[in-house]
């Protein structure tokens, strides 16, 4: 087991290096001289040259990339062009906020999606099942930003029960301000989880061991939770893992609608200010985050899928 975990960890390193190199390279294409942007248009050529030398902008690409990585490992993400502040100090709280949002969205999607999928599968072709299949079809195809606007329209403007935007603090405040954005962000994933759960459960329902268990006289609820669900879980986990990446991406848009102070909004703001170091740092941090989430899901497989476990146990013997 430990062997598996170590192996997965080692495999992440080249991916992370590659992802940072990719984003770093893309940002190389950004027009404009950072030194000129920082000094303004009136600066003399000499001043610009001195600052370029100071910032190490005249170094070759590889040197700058290696410096970026070593700084990143030290927790230094560079300085923003916008306000000359350290990016790491601006980004850390925002990363937390994004994770709160994305985490709640995953939680909602799982807590609603899996039970709904199970019921749909057990009551296949019932009115409930048809209704769920229709709803999820549309939910999976709905743009996050549009759903968000509709939810604001209904719950904040018409009914007035939830705040339309912003992130509040404190116990009921944070939770209340979290409901609409988290629900919005979770919508697509929830629909996909429900559909996958249904499909995966339907495959398990027809297996012989379910008939055997039923013949032994097990209660239907025990049968569902103990015998069907664990066997149907692997495709569901895969979907959750895949969607976390798109959830982090989707948070960019969701944060813009709900004025949620996360990294996504920070990126959008940074883009409008052409603040390249901030964009670079935020995208890199989100890519790292999503890689680690994928790693976590991979590790979960080992616990859920006995085949992976036994593969490594047999190696040990």
């Amino acid at each position, binding site marked *: 087991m430990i062997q598996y975990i170590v192996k997965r960890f080692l495999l992440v390193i080249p991916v992370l290096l590659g992802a940072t190199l990719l984003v770093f390279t893309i940002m*190389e294409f950004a027009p404009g001289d950072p030194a000129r942007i920082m000094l303004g248009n009136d600066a003399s050529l000499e001043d610009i040259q001195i600052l370029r030398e100071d910032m190490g902008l005249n170094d070759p690409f590889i040197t700058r990339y290696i410096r970026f990585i070593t700084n990143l490992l030290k927790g230094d993400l560079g300085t923003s062009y916008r306000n000359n502040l350290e990016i790491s100090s601006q980004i850390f709280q925002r990363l937390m906020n994004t994770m709160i949002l994305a985490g709640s969205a995953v939680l909602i999607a799982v807590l609603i999606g899996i039970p709904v999928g199970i019921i749909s599968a057990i009551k296949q072709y019932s009115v409930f099942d048809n209704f769920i299949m229709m709803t999820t079809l549309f939910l999976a195809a709905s743009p996050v930003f549009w759903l968000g606007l509709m939810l604001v329209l209904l719950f904040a403007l018409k009914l007035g029960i939830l705040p339309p935007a912003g992130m509040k603090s404190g116990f009921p405040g944070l939770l209340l301000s979290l409901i609409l954005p988290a629900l919005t962000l979770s919508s697509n994933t929830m629909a996909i989880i429900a559909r996958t759960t249904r499909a995966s459960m339907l495959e398990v329902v027809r297996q012989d061991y379910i008939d055997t268990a039923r013949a032994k006289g097990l209660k239907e609820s025990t049968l569902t939770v103990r015998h069907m669900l664990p066997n149907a879980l692997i495709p569901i986990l895969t979907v959750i893992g895949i969607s976390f990446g798109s959830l982090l991406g989707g948070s960019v*848009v969701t944060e813009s609608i709900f004025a949620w102070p996360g990294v996504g909004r920070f990126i959008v703001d940074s883009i409008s200010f052409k603040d390249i170091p901030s*964009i670079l740092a935020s*995208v890199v941090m989100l890519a790292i985050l999503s890689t680690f989430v994928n790693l976590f899901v991979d590790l979960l497989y080992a616990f859920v899928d006995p085949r992976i476990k036994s593969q490594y146990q047999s190696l040990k013997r």
Partner: protein
Amino acid sequence: MCALNNKITVESKVETVRDRTLFQQAWNQFKRNRRAMVGLWIIATLVFILIVTILIDFLTDYSIYDSFVIKQNLRNKLAKPSLKHFLGCDEFGRDLLLRILWGTKYSLLLGFSAVSLSFLIGGPFGMIAGFYGGKIDNAIMRVMDVFMACPFILLAMAIVAALGISTTNLLIALGVSGMASFSRVTRASVMAVKDMEYVEAARAVGASDLRIIVQYIFPNAMAPILVQITLRIGTAILLVAGLSYIGLGIQPPAPEWGAILTSAKMYMRDAWHISAFPGLFLVTTVVAFNLFGDGLRDALDPKLKK
């Protein structure tokens, strides 16, 4: 005589069954799928709207576009849906229905071109990886893993941010960020057919690698790729709208659906219709492509069917 006649008709029926091409078989299968046909009809309608709006612009030299879709008419500001303006008017008094109809071309054309571009970049890599295997495969696929590690929309945003906001750059961003998944699909389907007997036969008669890939493997590996293309168009349309919504895609006053929603947000309290209708069109379009893609998958590749 009668028996002979019967025999002939039976034989000709057998002949017609044999004569059916793979395309006809798939089409027959597809036709029976009601949901897929609904998807196809919606897409056909959208394509019709697209052609008509482009033709009108071409024939009237953009005068209708300029005076009804773009030109502001503040007397109708935020007008509610009525018989005169079926879907109401936007914050500048422009007819929302006309704007949405004219916006169809952005979603459809950009969605389709972005996915095609992804395939044109990612497909050949996948083909080479799947065909040659070994070290080449490993090298290509590890690079693709890196692309997959970055969330799709973030990669697209980074590219737009670096290259600058324009339609061409949006297309490049979507094309590049989507290529990795296409290289994976292409690789998998090439690997599924590359050991088939007809490929071996082609190799035995001395066909070059390029010829084998282009003439024998590609046509037979096409089904899953085609399915992936249709299913991805929906995602690409949502991305175009999403990026336009946050101001990184199509810029106003162009009537792109996502861009319409950006300004609609500010008038939500007084004019719900501006934010509701463009979204409904978006959802319908994406649902149509998803239904069509699912139907295509069932018809072309029964193995993939769940």
